[in-house]
């Protein structure tokens, strides 16, 4: 074997195995999650059975409820009109349940991203991650979304 063949073969081996490992590490559902607007979830709930997703929208005004003395929250998320792919979903909402400490920016009209799953009947989105954002501001807003 000439040196060129050796180099090509070892490069192929390294890139191949590296690429395989890379692809494999992205298959973990906690690593790679799909993002959808609330309108997609409203229009086609069947699409998301058994799949962890991230859903984005606005918190509907006055919809935040907290069970007294606990960290259990329930609220409605409405699609963002400007980004909606399914106009028929506008005006409807998705019910989200979340247990845990909410970020300071979580309030009426806040832009939120929730990660979790739809219940099997499609009625409720059970979230275990909640990111909320006050109206945008460079840096401050970016940093705010960190790991809540």
């Amino acid at each position: 074997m000439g040196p060129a063949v050796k180099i090509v073969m070892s490069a192929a081996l390294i890139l191949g195995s590296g690429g395989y490992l890379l692809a494999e590490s992205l298959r973990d559902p906690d690593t790679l999650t799909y993002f959808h607007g609330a309108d997609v979830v409203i229009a086609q709930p069947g699409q998301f059975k058994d799949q962890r997703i991230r859903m984005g929208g606005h918190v509907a005004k006055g919809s935040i409820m907290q069970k007294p003395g606990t960290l259990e929250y329930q609220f409605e998320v409405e699609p963002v009109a400007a980004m909606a792919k399914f106009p028929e979903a506008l005006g409807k909402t998705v019910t989200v349940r979340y247990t845990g400490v909410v970020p300071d920016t979580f309030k009426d009209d806040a832009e939120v991203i929730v990660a979790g799953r739809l219940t099997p009947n499609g009625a409720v989105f059970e979230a275990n991650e909640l990111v909320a954002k006050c109206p945008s501001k460079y840096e401050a807003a970016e940093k705010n979304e960190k790991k809540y």
Partner: protein
Amino acid sequence: MTDLGYYAILATFVVATYTALAAILGHLKQSPRLAASAQYGAFATFGTLTISSASLVYLFVTNDYSVKYVQHYSDRSMPLFYKATSFWGGQDGSLLFWVWVLSIWGAIAVYQNRNKNREIMPYTIATLMVIVIFFTVLMLFQANPFETYLAGAPTDGRGLNPLLQNPYMVTHPPSLYLGYIGWTIPFTFAIGALAHGKLDYSWISAMRRWCLVAWFFLTVGLTLGGLWAYEELGWGGYWAWDPVENAAFFPWLTGTAFIHSVQVQERRGMYKAWNLVLIIVTFILTLLGTMMTRSGVVQSVHAFAQSDIGTYFFAFIILTVVVSFGLLLYRMEALRPQQGLESILSREFAFLVNNWILLAAAFLVLFGTLFPSLYKGVTGHEVNVGATFFNTWMIPIGMVMLFLTGVGPLLSWRKSTAATVQQQFTLPVVVAAIVAVGLWFGLDITNWKPLATLVLCAFVTSTILQEFYRGTRYRMRNAKENVLDAFITLVVRARRRYGGYVIHFGIVLMFVGFAGEAFKLEEDKTLKEGESVSIGRYAVTLQQLRFEDDGQKTMITADVAVKKAGADMGELHPAKWAYRKPEDQVTTEVSKMMSLRDDLYLVLGGYDAENRLATLQLKVNPLVNFVWLGCTFTMFGFSIAVWPDRKKQEATVRVRRFMPAFAGAASLLVMVVTLVLAFI
């Protein structure tokens, strides 16, 4: 003032264009007058940009809310100090800050080399000026910080996000910028050398210290960012693989690789082309990072500052790639190595592996950060890459890097014999084995990640101590000095080497801190007044919930009594502050009890004023303070490594001595100010 600031940017554009042309023409026509003129031009851009920056600060301080940028990022109620530092609080001002810092570094570099490196300096100055031109164009056409409201200027500003009104946000961005932009100087020297064709070691010795300075500020900046996240954001960690953090991390990785591999070129005349590739890539990554954090490219899911500057950056990056790599290919013939690799058991090979690992790390972080944007571009679907991806890859990579930190310096250049390997590694391996046994049986640490990390830390530490010990003993015998004299002379005679060891020790301490992540405890609990909860060896009791108002904000504080292993430790006061401005902005005020072994970290997660309930997030973060301690050692090691040798009596020695001294003093000051402000 807006006119002055704006016209100063315009003047910078004109002067920089002239300077670039004068530098190159002066070189081609061999005209000393033009060459001198180009040097003054470089100083002049520093002058004009200083005027522009000063105008912006003046506008902030004098509450001129007719200026959009000032109105967006400050308000009357802010302390003067934070008004001034709002300068870099937003996009447009931060670009001005960027190019201002570049002009400072550039002016120092040009001054240092005013009588040296005559061949490459013209091209270096020209490259520098092209970068300055790019940023001025960006501000003139896309991101003018001096833009005013045409009519109906507001009488008050919107206020700076309270999260940014914090001592760390005063020191963290400048430090990060100094480091980030510092890499531009080595890059301009590299392009200067490539353009002229003088590709011997001279360009590297001209900018070697600059790399250390850039590396140092970047390291301190990253650490301060981590401290800020830990103190202010209230999620209990300091690093979350956020795209903004990653953007500053790629150049750190490639820059670290560069610092190591230039030593191989210095000693053995190898890796010449490779070093050029590394510094070019490092500079491109700083551009990419600046672009990513400002153009909304990365946060495609929730873009914040959508603007066209992304297009400009993209074009400039393409230009940089084409010109740099084009020159590199053109000069390939001159970059042949003088010698080949002789053995795998050699320091140059260890450095090569170190380079591969650091580059692989940079690639993976870049891949994970850009994957969502690429994926969206290809499939139209939006995805998110979680922290698990980064942790899966970076933990093993970090361990290999740590291992090489111990191994590399102990291998000889060219070839290590079996005897030297045995002599160098017997003790460290024995120490590592003892520590492994101790951790496993004594402390019951069986999780392989922290176990392996801590064992490697012990291994590297013993290699470093062994070096100091052997060197000192050698001097004591041969020069007949006492212990202290021998030790000091040893370090002073080979500052780079022993300073480097101290930096390595700082990195080891940081890894000890990273290992502590594996043992952290977390619990959320809602308590009534008088109720208690325990976590690890701590027990906390909610005494009362307090409500106060200071005019700027409403403060809700939980008074919490803490016991550690049964002993009273006093009170902690986690709080939530609701600011009037920006409207309804709430911040979480973390309260923590620090010790070298662990931090008890309390956050007031929520409260119920009616029923007097407080929800506490409790976290115990073991070993976390080793991260900050490690950074301090790194700073110390840097000061040793970068201090110039007193022997060389060149004309420029004063400047050379001044610059690192200045850098060291400035950064120590920054650190001290931060700590003082943070702890009062």
